[in-house]
């Protein structure tokens, strides 16, 4: 049906609108009608077929485990009945197809909600297997607003059926879905995942959708479909109606068809009349030929980076090689540190972040998944998944939200055989290193040869050129001086033969020589001049950013020097240094975060770290605490002081790693209980407790009971802090306490959260109740019987 697409394909219109017209009660599960009133559903399908629809949609939009929780029918029963009814309605008709309709689950995936990616996958899998067995011809995943949920549905469809997959999302008038995905990100992700048709449905009328359609056609290399609403919903005499008529609908749809949309139908408010009118209006037209687009992109759920248009920076800092603090953080599973590195890179101008967590003594796969999930929940940049292990890469690109970059494939046969199937299946962009079984070649020509080999082999797997970015590999000037220029010469050589973009990790060039900064910046400038598209570099390093910003001005990429002026017109003089002893206390009490770092570095020249903590930090925090209790200062100020103090602490720790180990005996486990996603209060408690030297193991929000118990046992925890904000989740707090007391009898538990009272806390078995973060410190002090002295 899709082979040539020489004529338009027409879907049906709304099911819900037709059910309302038949006088059926709204608000109940319309999917149950497949079993209770199949004749009504049958006749609706027939009406659409008579109107000329080529494809009819089964009445299964919400037929999933979550929405049918309270139904007396199973997902399998409803989908089987629905698809059978739809099939029956096409009997005796030529070239008519049944699409298995799959809508959103109805609850959100983590991190916005609480459903895991795997749970979502299973929910969709159940629907797809039932639909395939009942004889559906197409899988239509529609009205999606979360690209992550859509990805799980597409994977479930592709892995459990061989049917064509059509995927549509709903966009608001700002060009984004409710969860923030724009058209470019949508196209890059779903096209990569191998759907057959993509498009837009619902949410708006056809007129308001024209700009979304333009974007879809601009980026898509596969057929585009549109199912618009019959205008915008209006309300009159207790009835909802849509505000445009069939003629107006057809007029807008004709415009879309002329632009290149090949598959058309209707959504809310449309009826057989609209469909018939639309088909008549398009009778004289033929679909436009689809052209391949050749963008090199990587995306997150909300941001797409186009490589090649202007210099893009791939941040390299999340890589433990040679980084003491990051190694330590990964071993301790201290993801806060990793996330802060990610934020620092985003804020300093990185466009993409490389993620490498390879350490010999950790479970790299688990850590990679965890880091990707956590970083993606806070930072909106696309990620580059960097590992030497193929199974780590596959696990990571599977749960990644967006279109990732894989770092890397190389010219070795084994590497290509392992990486290309993964890249193809998940639609990733791949970094290709110009080395093979014989090592890194010494000439630019040889680099081109290896690049050609990789690019041509990729094509055999169905991976287009634009999904390869080549890294021509830098050698160090101290060891192989003559080879340094060969890397640069390879850049234009490769680009002249293929439509590929170039990335380069360039800081190795200076290895073994003094004043590395000078060599690195000069080399970066040279590489950009040779046509480097995306340096893999450190955006928090001012000298390197100076080169990139100035290059963007001189190469006419930074139009009107806007970025450049923004970065350099308001340069402030270096911070003044502080000398007086009382200043650090003062800085903490006033919460002067910006001054904390330089001041504490400076003080380390005169005091040892323990002195700074005991003589300045703790006394200052006590004063802050008292002021807070007396209501002289309030929550934002308390937190600001705590953040300032944390900066002091981190600075000291950085300068003297061994000097200031916290004793393991004062560990506190914190968690927001299962089902609850309100964790801001817990985060405040954590910060304040850390200030007082307690070591916090933070399990985050929506934490399974088993995980809390397991961690308490493994880490030999004596004090646990639990938070819950909702009456519905306080129940889980009770269950968690019960499980902890059973498995770890000596353990003490403090609880907090808006709906708790001291009485209720003791009723559910908690040992302590705290109304705020300050109270938690007092509890911890009482528990250990003394302060950190």
């Amino acid at each position: 049906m899709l082979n040539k697409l020489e004529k338009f394909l027409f879907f049906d219109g709304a099911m819900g609108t037709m059910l309302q017209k038949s006088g059926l009660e709204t608000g109940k599960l319309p999917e149950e009608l497949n079993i209770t009133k199949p004749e009504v559903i049958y006749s609706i399908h027939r009406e659409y077929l008579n109107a000329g629809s080529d494809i009819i949609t089964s009445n299964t939009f919400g037929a999933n485990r979550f929405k049918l929780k309270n139904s007396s029918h199973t997902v399998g029963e409803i989908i089987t009945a629905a698809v059978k009814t739809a099939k029956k309605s096409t009997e005796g008709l030529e070239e008519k197809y049944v699409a298995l309709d799959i809508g959103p689950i109805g609850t959100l995936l983590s991190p916005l909600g609480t459903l895991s990616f795997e749970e979502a996958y299973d929910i969709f899998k159940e629907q797809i297997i039932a639909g395939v067995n009942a004889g559906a011809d197409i899988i239509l995943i529609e009205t999606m607003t979360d690209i992550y949920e859509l990805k799980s549905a597409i994977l479930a469809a592709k892995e459990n059926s061989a049917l064509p997959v059509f995927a549509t999302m709903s966009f608001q008038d700002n060009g984004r879905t409710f969860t923030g995905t724009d058209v470019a990100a949508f196209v890059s992700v779903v096209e990569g995942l191998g759907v057959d048709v993509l498009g837009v449905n619902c949410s708006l009328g056809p007129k308001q959708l024209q700009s979304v359609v333009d974007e879809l056609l601009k980026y898509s290399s596969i057929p585009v479909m549109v199912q618009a609403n019959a205008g915008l919903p209006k309300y009159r005499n207790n009835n909802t109606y849509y505000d445009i008529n069939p003629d107006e609908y057809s007029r807008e749809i004709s415009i879309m068809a002329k632009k290149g949309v090949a598959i058309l139908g209707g959504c809310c408010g449309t009826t057989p009349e609209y469909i018939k009118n639309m088909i008549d209006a398009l009778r004289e037209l033929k679909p436009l030929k689809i052209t391949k687009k050749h963008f090199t992109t990587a995306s997150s759920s909300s941001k797409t980076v186009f490589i090649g248009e202007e210099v893009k920076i791939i941040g390299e800092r999340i890589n433990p090689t040679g980084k003491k603090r990051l190694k330590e953080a990964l071993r301790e599973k201290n993801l806060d540190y990793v996330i802060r590195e990610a934020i620092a890179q985003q804020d300093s101008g990185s466009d993409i972040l490389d993620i490498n967590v390879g350490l010999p003594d950790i479970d790299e796969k688990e850590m990679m998944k965890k880091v990707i999930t956590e970083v993606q929940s806070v930072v909106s940049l696309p990620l580059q998944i960097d590992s030497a292990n193929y199974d780590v890469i596959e696990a990571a690109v599977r749960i990644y939200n967006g279109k990732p970059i894989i770092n890397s494939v190389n010219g070795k046969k084994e590497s290509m055989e392992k990486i290309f199937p993964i890249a193809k299946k998940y639609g990733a962009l791949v970094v290709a290193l110009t080395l093979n079984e014989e090592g890194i070649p010494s000439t630019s020509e040889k680099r081109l040869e290896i690049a050609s080999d990789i690019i041509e082999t990729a094509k055999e797997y169905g991976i287009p050129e634009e999904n390869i970015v080549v890294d021509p590999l830098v050698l160090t000037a101290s060891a192989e001086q003559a080879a340094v220029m060969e890397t640069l010469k390879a850049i234009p050589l490769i680009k002249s033969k293929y439509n590929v973009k170039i990335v380069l990790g360039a800081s190795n060039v200076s290895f073994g020589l003094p004043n590395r900064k000078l060599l690195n910046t000069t080399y970066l400038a040279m590489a950009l001049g040779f046509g480097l598209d995306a340096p893999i570099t450190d955006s928090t390093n001012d000298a390197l950013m100076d080169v990139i910003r100035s290059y963007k001005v001189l190469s006419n990429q930074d139009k009107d020097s806007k970025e450049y002026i923004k970065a350099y017109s308001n340069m402030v003089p270096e911070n003044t240094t502080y000398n007086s002893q009382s200043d650090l206390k003062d800085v903490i009490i006033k919460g002067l975060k910006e001054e904390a770092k330089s001041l504490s570095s400076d003080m380390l020249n005169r005091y040892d770290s323990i002195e700074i903590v005991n003589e300045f930090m703790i006394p200052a925090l006590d004063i802050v605490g008292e002021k807070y209790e007396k209501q002289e200062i309030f929550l934002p100020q308390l937190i600001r002081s705590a953040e300032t103090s944390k900066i002091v602490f981190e600075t000291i720790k950085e300068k003297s790693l061994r000097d200031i180990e916290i004793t393991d005996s004062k560990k506190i486990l914190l968690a927001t209980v299962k089902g609850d996603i309100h964790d801001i209060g817990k985060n405040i408690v954590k910060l304040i407790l850390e200030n007082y030297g307690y070591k916090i193991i933070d399990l985050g929000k929506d934490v399974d009971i088993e995980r809390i118990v397991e961690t308490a046992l493994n880490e030999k925890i004596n004090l646990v802090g639990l938070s819950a904000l909702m009456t519905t989740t306080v129940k889980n707090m009770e269950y968690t306490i019960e499980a902890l007391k059973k498995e770890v009898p000596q353990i003490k538990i403090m609880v907090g959260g808006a709906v708790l009272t001291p009485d209720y806390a003791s009723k559910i078995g908690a040992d302590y109740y705290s109304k705020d973060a300050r109270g938690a410190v007092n509890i911890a002090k009482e528990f250990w019987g003394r302060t950190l002295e």
Partner: protein
Amino acid sequence: MSVRHIDNGLVKIDKTEALRYLGYKNKNVDEETVRLLDESITELQEISELKYVFKIFNIKKENNNIGFESGLTIKSDDLSELFKHCDKAAIMAATIGFEAEKRIRYYSVSNLSKAVVFDACAASCIESLCDIAEAEIKAIAAKENCNITYRYSPGYGDVPISHQIEILSVLNAQKLIGLTASDYSILMPKKSVTAFIGFDKGNKIHKKSCLNCNLFGNCGFVEGEKNHVK
């Protein structure tokens, strides 16, 4: 069913209200917090996606069950009392969207003091949005010579919060305004509200009071401290 997308400029984010959420009680607000408030309000004006949907139903009352025409039934003494003089009621749902939520999460990691201020402003923002929705509903009620009760949300009094999913389904809120709920009835985006508003034939003036709140006696936000009996 009425769906509205409200222009961000129309919603006033009340600084005093945000400060109250932060516990300030009109006392010495420091400069830095004021700066964070201003920043947060400006950002919210840029990124919020303010939307609400409501529908008006005929209601039936029997043995403290309130039956809405859609099939939704709420068993509640408190709501029955509030709706004593009502034959009609609106169900509404409002949200400020996911972008604000993403921003709060970002600040929770990068700048926690900003996060709490931003969170308080977002809370004030959703309240203001609900006020706009309420005003529209009030105007409809006035045409029918009714006053309206105050907004009564699931989780208040004895109205179970577990009705959230049903309410969203009755309003088609996921499709229309992108609002969903979890298994535990947590609304997502979090800065969202669902509520019942009765059309009061008796034209009684309804005023919300701390005295009939579940948290009365255990809450730091009590309005007018003289009412605060502990």
